[in-house]
């Protein structure tokens, strides 16, 4: 005679259903976030920013005073920021994910602090007349922002940041007159090069 099986209570099945559904949703969210890293950084936007930086470098090289040179590059920074926000939003829209979903939010949180530090240092260096430090400082901090923001993204993004840091380090060690050339090579050349790679390999 076989012993009577204990009666099943519905509760454990109920918990399992809920847990399983929650686990499935968690899996979906994590997969979408990881997949989103393919798209968070806009390659075409990077190319557009690089092209405006090349133009800015040419215009800046013709300025008669350092203050005007700084003004040209600050205007370029504002333009680049607008282009970046627009193209990130466009890419997020194309992928039907909100602008500040997982990867976008992580990138913004990592990217913003070095950029804020860069703005503060720019003001301090300008006040103290240490203008020769500006190209190196800008390249270093932009590189740091890209490495930090891109640490959750595809590998090419932090690699781009490292290249900016290397260029910034070289700029700090070089004569002040080379500063505009380094800016052109970094914000123009590197930005276009990596923008093309991202656009081709990571969905635009």
């Amino acid at each position, binding site marked *: 005679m076989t012993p009577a099986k204990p009666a*099943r209570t*519905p509760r454990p*099945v*109920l*918990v*399992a*259903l*809920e847990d*399983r*559904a*929650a686990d*499935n*949703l968690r*899996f*979906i*969210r994590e*997969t*979408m*976030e*990881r*997949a*989103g890293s*393919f*798209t968070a950084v806009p390659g075409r936007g990077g190319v557009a920013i690089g092209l405006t930086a090349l133009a800015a470098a040419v215009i800046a090289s013709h300025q008669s005073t350092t203050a005007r040179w700084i003004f040209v590059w600050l205007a370029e920074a504002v333009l680049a920021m607008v282009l970046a926000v627009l193209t990130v939003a466009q890419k997020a829209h*194309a*992928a*039907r*994910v*909100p602008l500040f*979903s997982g990867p976008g939010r992580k990138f913004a949180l990592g990217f913003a602090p070095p950029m804020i530090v860069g703005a503060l240092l720019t003001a301090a260096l300008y006040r103290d007349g240490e203008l020769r430090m500006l190209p190196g400082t800008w390249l270093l901090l932009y590189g740091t922002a890209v490495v930090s923001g891109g640490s959750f993204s595809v590998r090419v993004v932090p690699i781009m940041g490292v290249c900016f840091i290397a260029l910034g380090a070289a700029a700090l060690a070089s004569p002040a007159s080379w500063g505009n050339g380094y800016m052109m090579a970094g914000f123009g050349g590197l930005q276009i090069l990596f923008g093309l790679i991202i656009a081709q390999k990571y*969905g*635009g």
Partner: protein
Amino acid sequence: MRAKLGTATAERISRSHAQAPRLSALRGENQEPVASGLDRLIHERMRLGIVSALAANPSLTFNELKALLRTTDGNLSVHARKLEEATYISCTKMLDGRLPKTRYRLTAAGRRAFERYLDHMESLIRAAREK
């Protein structure tokens, strides 16, 4: 998750909640806690991964999906083919230089099925919490 799919999906979720299978109907002795009406094609973990990844991207190549889902060529092709046969995803083959490249996209039918699946999972959780 709902926010990711917009207000249309949110509306659909609330509609589907009203029509959601009652948990009382799911609490039978069935070992597999799967509701009737659940899209089993998407429910399988690898296929759910493929559809989720494509929902977050306009398109992904075979290699990108393989890296993302940490799977093998064979496993990915089997599951991708099933989704393709159900017209949930579309597949484009092209040449990148000399190398063949396969690119997948989520179709409108696939996106609808994915949203239905999300509705279903959220309804199950909500119904369980209301108990």
